[in-house]
């Protein structure tokens, strides 16, 4: 945690670190979802340092059948990837994603926060209704903050569930991100003059009207 200030003096001393580690272990084991450091500390006795306990716990599970993994600012226990073959029984049938949905997902992940117009600009075709809907529904994508460009279009960003699903600690760990950035392929380079693909941009401007209606008085 960024918060490095010393905790206020407490009447009761925090439990020993070994005990804190046990607590974190129990909570992470009990939960299917990642648990944030803040939530861990909210459950643990006053004065505990979940972040430090996590460092110990993570080391303890290195090379074991399950691992302590980080998902965004939360932590979870997951099986080791090399043992997936044992788990056929647990495999859940994931909804098959269309090629359009997969590409849209990748574009949002690598370009986030990313507007619909940007997705269309990159793919060269308009994004069909169901595509983003499906990604929202799977909770791999959510609405981000509006872009400060004309029309203030909404943006899309990936969710912690997305990171969890693909085993990423954060969106910065996306494979090949650095190389793509260095190659300038994540830039939003405006077309010189008028390109046919530029068209969706206008659409977004029209969106302003629709939007302002909502916030009338």
């Amino acid at each position: 945690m960024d918060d490095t200030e010393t905790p206020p003096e407490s009447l009761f001393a925090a439990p020993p670190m070994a005990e804190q580690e046990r607590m974190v272990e129990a909570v992470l084991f009990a939960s299917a979802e990642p648990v944030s450091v803040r939530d861990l500390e909210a459950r643990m006795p006053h004065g505990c340092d979940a972040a430090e306990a996590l460092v110990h716990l993570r080391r303890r599970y290195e090379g074991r059948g399950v691992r302590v993994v980080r998902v965004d600012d939360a932590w979870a226990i997951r099986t080791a990837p090399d043992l997936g073959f044992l788990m056929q029984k647990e495999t859940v049938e994931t909804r098959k994603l269309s090629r359009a949905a997969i590409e849209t997902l990748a574009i949002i992940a690598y370009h986030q926060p990313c507007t619909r117009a940007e997705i269309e600009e990159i793919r060269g075709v308009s994004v069909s209704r169901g595509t983003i809907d499906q990604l929202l529904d799977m909770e791999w994508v959510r609405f981000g903050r509006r872009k400060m460009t004309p029309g203030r279009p909404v943006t899309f960003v990936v969710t912690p569930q997305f990171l969890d699903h693909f085993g990423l600690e954060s969106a910065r760990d996306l494979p090949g991100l650095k190389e793509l950035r260095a190659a300038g392929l994540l830039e939003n380079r405006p077309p010189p003059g008028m390109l046919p693909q530029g068209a969706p941009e206008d659409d977004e401007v029209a969106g302003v009207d629709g939007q302002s209606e909502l916030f009338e008085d």
Partner: protein
Amino acid sequence: MSDNIFQEDPISVADRLAAEALIVDVDGFEGPLDLLLTLSRTQKVDLRRISVLELARQYLAFVERAKVLRIELAADYLVMAAWLAFLKSRLLLPPDPSEDGPTGEELAAHLAFQLERLQAMRDAAARLMGRDRLGRDVFARGQSENVARIRTVTWSATLLDLMQGYARIRTRDEFRPFVMDRDSVLTMEQALERMRGLIGFAGSWTDLTSYLPEGWDSTPMRRRSATAATFAASLELVKEGRLELRQSETFAPIQLRKRDPH
């Protein structure tokens, strides 16, 4: 994106056939950019060294072939064809100093950038989907613990629920039979109720319009509705013998006064 050694290799017969075979499956492409990307592979060079001029030729030949085979191409394919024909002329002809706007080289460079970026995103998508995935390669806790000691109910809703709920309400209006928006309509009942409360103070002749409720002159529609309702309510009160009305001439202001019971 590895460099390819066959950089300037002329297009082989096999590649030409492959390019033409694409015509059979025009529906399989996700738009002109996707088609261009597929065509560009026949050049067998790094996307950064692609000959856009050659690509334009291939694309235009593709569109021509489709015409011969009477395959109907979607409008965006034709728009792209027109644009590529324009680009081709810009690339081939010496620049016209009287014309401004981007040069052919700039346009070609941007198209090459678009193709490279699309390819990069496809590669990235493939790498992403190839990762160890939760529920397939990596597994979460199968049995999250439920110690049923304290049963607190929390209510959950997702952003999607919220937006769908809102969308549901907002679109319901699109389907209801036409009804006047009630906030711009003063009903006679409302006016009557208001007038009953006010006529006690109408000892002397007063203009009808001064009885319009506050705020109802903000738009013509609201003013008309309020005037009509107030007038109708006045007539009703005249009928009840509680009010007198007068008008000096046609279109002159209508005035009203309380009528004392005899």
